[in-house]
């Protein structure tokens, strides 16, 4: 191969070499890190909440006026919702996964334990919750209707039994089986412990940024916020939108001294929760496409310019015995060398960029394979970009050697 003479000829056009090389280096560094960030965001967005998101929606009732009774309204509303055609299940609930608002508290196993073993989200629900959320019970039992109590701001009642997620059960009672075991969910100095009656496969906390997102506790209690109550409804498959359309009117008609609001599907709650992640992924994706396009165009432009500039030289090489393939190979090799030089610098930049992201944005370390894969992709990009100009070069007729001056 004619690597050495191509390299020494390249060294005579250093400015172009440095410009294209730097462009390739920056492209590698930015594309690798951007792809990594996109991957993390997508991974984050794909985490299952544990609940049925397709068929479910939430709605809130806020009572007003003298003599509004939130407790009787809640019970009547849940009964009404369950009776509506197209409704498969319904529950009163204080908060939803992906909603980024709710109640959490530290958990301890013994009353004198200072630092909590884990922090978990509390879902205040009734006996219809497992059905409405579409949760899978993996151990123990569901709540019984008679177990459902009330918890208010002033009335600190701890339920006798709760249902926890599998992740939390493992955290609290590793390898022991959680059902029947006791722990504290409220202030251990003033309230009794509670007993695990059931374990569900998974249910995320409401906060998508939570580090312990799989730790949730279902409490068999109604939790009215003042005169407000929220319900989760699961429609029969395919009937969610149809049910959503009528539910507002039905609830309003049943009790005129309240406002029905906050009607939204859990799918839309998820979309809202990850709107920033999706936007970030899209922007970075656009940046990647733009960078690759600009780099490819830069290579095409530079190679085209060089082919034009060297037309006579190409003719001379042909006259001296180069085949068309020799000329094609010359430009492909030249591009490969430029790209490789750029990529070597780019590998260092990629690493430096990642270190910067790690120190300033708590980004994880870039897995090593991003760089070699990036090398392969940019080598391919370079060869494809240069193919057009190189083919044009190979078609320069040998007679150019004597004809052009």
């Amino acid at each position: 191969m004619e690597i050495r003479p191509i390299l020494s000829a390249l060294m005579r056009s250093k400015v172009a070499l440095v410009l294209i090389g730097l462009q390739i280096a920056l492209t590698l560094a930015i594309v690798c890190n951007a792809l990594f960030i996109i991957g993390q965001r997508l991974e984050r967005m794909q985490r299952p909440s544990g609940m049925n998101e397709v068929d479910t929606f939430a709605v809130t009732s806020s009572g007003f006026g003298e003599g509004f009774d939130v407790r009787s309204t809640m019970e009547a509303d849940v009964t009404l919702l369950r009776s509506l055609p197209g409704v498969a299940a319904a529950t009163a609930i204080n908060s939803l996964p992906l909603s980024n608002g709710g109640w959490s508290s530290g958990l301890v196993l013994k009353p004198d334990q200072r630092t909590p073993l884990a922090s978990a989200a509390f879902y205040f629900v009734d006996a219809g919750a497992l059905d409405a959320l579409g949760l899978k019970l993996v151990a123990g039992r569901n709540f019984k209707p008679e177990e459902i109590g009330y918890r208010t701001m002033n009335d600190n009642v701890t339920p006798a039994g709760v249902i926890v997620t599998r992740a939390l059960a493992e955290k609290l009672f590793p390898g022991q089986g959680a059902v029947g075991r006791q722990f504290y969910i409220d202030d251990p100095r003033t309230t009794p412990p509670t007993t695990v009656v059931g374990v569900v496969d998974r249910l995320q906390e409401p906060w998508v940024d939570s580090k312990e997102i799989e730790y949730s506790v279902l409490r068999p209690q109604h939790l009215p916020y003042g005169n407000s109550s929220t319900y989760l409804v699961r429609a029969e498959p395919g009937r969610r939108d149809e049910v959503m359309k009528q539910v507002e009117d039905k609830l309003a008609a049943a009790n005129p001294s309240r406002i029905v609001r906050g009607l939204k599907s859990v799918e839309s709650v998820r979309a809202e929760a990850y709107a920033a992640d999706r936007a970030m992924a899209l922007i970075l994706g656009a940046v990647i496409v733009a960078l690759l396009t600009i780099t490819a165009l830069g290579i095409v432009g530079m190679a085209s310019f060089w082919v034009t500039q060297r037309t006579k030289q190409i003719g001379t090489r042909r006259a001296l015995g180069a085949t068309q393939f020799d000329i094609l190979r010359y430009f492909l090799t030249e591009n490969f060398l430029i790209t490789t030089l750029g990529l070597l610098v780019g590998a260092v930049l990629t690493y430096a960029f990642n270190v910067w992201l790690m120190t300033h944005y708590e980004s994880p370390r870039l897995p090593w394979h991003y760089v070699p894969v990036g090398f392969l992709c940019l080598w391919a990009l370079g060869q494809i970009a240069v193919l057009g100009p190189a083919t044009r070069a190979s078609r320069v007729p040998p007679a150019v050697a004597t004809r052009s001056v």
Partner: protein
Amino acid sequence: MLAMKHLQKVYRTHLIETHALRDFSIHVREGEFVAVTGPSGSGKTTFLNIAGLLEEFTGGEYKLDGVDVGGMNDAERSRLRNEKIGFIFQGFNLIPDLNLFDNVDVPLRYRGFNAAERKRRIEESLGRVGLASRMKHYPSELSGGQQQRVAIARALAGSPRLLLADEPTGNLDSLMARGVMELMEEINRQGTTIVMVTHDPELAVRAQRNVHVMDGQVTDLGEEPRLRVPASPEPMPA
């Protein structure tokens, strides 16, 4: 060495047809030094390009070293060009980004010689033209005459049987032109066949035979070819 019979070359553009060569016949024997003269536009370069396999012809027959080159494809022609023919151009056609060593190396790499063989040939042929000490220099650092010597070294490095030169002294002053001419005579004495296009009658008369071209045809084949009696070798110009 080179035999053309009733050769035709027509350039077709969308407007006109140019008959650059019509019924062009010539026979150059091994070891000859032929000068081709003729007015501008008469077809001299066209003849040289076809002789050197840079262009195809549209009719007639051309045998190079006994081989009919009519039906050859581009790769075969490139190969033949590389092995049998050395080119010398009016504009030197050195590659500006390569030093003299790498310039002379160009045809040798296409030939597929190994590194040691190439180095030996480059040093020898640059030595023959008196530029062995300048191997790391770039063409722009040399005078026109020196550049043409490098081009001659490049043409000779692959030991071609036939040297084709299109106005090799056209861009040189008379002193440098004489030096180049003496070098070519020396090369011819050592056995290489040379066909040289020139408009300089002074140089033309120094060749063994003059061929005059007019309107794409050979009008004057010159005296019957005879081989030059090897003279006492002259010292090489430095």
